[in-house]
């Protein structure tokens, strides 16, 4: 566990797990979404992105996951020294294999696989044998409230159950940087809390770098070291809200004054946007 100071301050020597420099992207025939955007995430940091619907969060994740090619700028993934790109001009790096684990916004479960096999897919892709993958998934299913659903096909699942399967699948896939796109949006308060706690426990144990998208400001503040807010389209800069709360966090922290301040700030930033994205 890092001390509060460490977790928050942007110390020059910290090692980066992800750095984005001058990212520019727009879908063909549409207005650009990102214009010279730069940001980074340190190793083991939990960073949350907050932005209005349609501003480009999912697109950013697809760029980071290597599914789209930046029109300009560089994306570096994997541990490297801060601000020292060996060759700043070099073309956008293709994010190395297996170095990000991406949980997409729409659970794209395979309709022909059971819950167990869908969840095991992440491990399988990481090279774990099917046998072993199933074993490890089976151990986790109860914690995800999916014990009874093990053999069900996706179409028999409720919305929240699908989301949990997708979350589990991506978490198990490993990777240095986790990209989670609204992983808990379909969960009720209690289940969501359990999942958040589970995520935090994994994060603290394995020290992964997490980039998290949510629409829930409380969730953002509760989980992350830093909250990055995009407030207008095209996104050229992210407003940073450091969350100076002790770790491990508790739900009572919501009543903390720091929390309320941060929340007010985030709301203001989001509200200030000038007809972002599609609006």
């Amino acid at each position: 566990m890092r001390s509060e100071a460490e977790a928050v301050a942007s110390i020059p020597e910290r090692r980066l797990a992800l750095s984005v420099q001058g990212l520019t992207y727009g879908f063909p025939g549409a207005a650009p979404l990102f214009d010279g955007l730069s940001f980074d995430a340190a190793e083991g940091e939990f960073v949350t992105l907050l932005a209005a619907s349609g501003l480009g969060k999912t697109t950013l994740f697809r760029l980071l996951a290597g599914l789209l090619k930046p029109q300009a700028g560089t994306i570096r993934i994997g541990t490297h020294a801060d601000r020292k790109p060996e060759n700043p001009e070099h073309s956008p790096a293709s994010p190395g294999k297996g170095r990000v684990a991406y949980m997409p916004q729409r659970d794209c479960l395979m309709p022909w696989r059971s819950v167990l096999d869908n969840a095991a897919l992440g491990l399988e892709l990481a090279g774990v044998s099917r046998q072993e993958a199933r074993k490890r998934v089976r151990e986790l299913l109860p914690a995800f409230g999916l014990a009874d659903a093990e053999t069900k096909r996706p179409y028999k699942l409720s919305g929240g159950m699908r989301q949990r399967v997708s979350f589990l699948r991506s978490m198990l896939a490993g990777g240095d940087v986790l990209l989670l796109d609204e992983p808990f949006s379909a969960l009720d308060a209690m289940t969501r809390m359990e999942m958040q706690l589970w995520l935090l426990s994994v994060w603290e144990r394995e020290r992964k770098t997490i980039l998290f998208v949510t629409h829930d400001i409380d969730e953002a503040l509760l989980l992350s070291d830093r909250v990055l807010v995009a407030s207008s389209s095209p996104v050229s800069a992210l407003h940073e809200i450091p969350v100076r709360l002790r770790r491990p966090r508790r739900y009572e922290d919501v009543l903390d004054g720091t929390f309320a301040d941060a929340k007010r700030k985030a709301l203001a930033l989001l509200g200030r946007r000038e007809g972002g994205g599609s609006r």
Partner: protein
Amino acid sequence: MRRRRAASAVPVVLFVLLLAVVWQLGTTLFRVPHYIVPKLSDVLVSLWEDRGVLGRHFAVTLEESLLGLAISAVFGTLTAACIEGSKLARRTLYPLLVASQTVPIVALSPIMVMWFGYELWSKVAVVVLFTFFPLAVNTADGFRSADAEIGEWMRSMGASRRALWTKWKLPSALPGFFTGLKLAAAISVGGATLGEWLGGEAGLGMYAKRASNLLRGEAVFAGVLLLSAMGIGLFLAASLLERFALAGRREVRREGAVW
């Protein structure tokens, strides 16, 4: 469950009986010449009298069809995979495939015989020529309809080419493959029949042709009836395979739904 299944066969049986009655009455009432359409009763008699010979020919044609289907299934899938995997292959293989369908086989019969001889293999080759195309095209379209989002996700997780194929593309193409297989199964019998016409000593196609040359309508139709039965049988087998392989995929609509 089993009761219901038995009950579900009733309309089919009734329908077949209806067809039989229409056939028998139609040929009797309109005095259709027996060498154009024989009476069903005569066909059944001929079927029974020639059962030994017909059984042997049936086995021959069935073997040709099954062999051809198996070869087409393997190579059709491979071709579809090439078409899916490489733009160049798509651009070059597709026209070739299409062309193969348009060549009148009889124009090629000397080549067929030269390459494959008079035995089994020339018939199998015709079956393959017939069934390869629907299998390849449907499987290729199956590949193409694979859910891109799943593929994207796998890509983002650094999935290998192999994993993409085995875990995403192939399972996605299965429904298309089975549509193709059902088509191919039904057509295969026609292919075998044509193959037998290109020269051969055995098979139901040869039997029907010889009967037709002798103006023996009831024997022609006995052969045709058996060929149809074989085709329907192969089609049903393919459907069963499909149901088995796709179990649990398309049930959204059925289970628990009112309609």
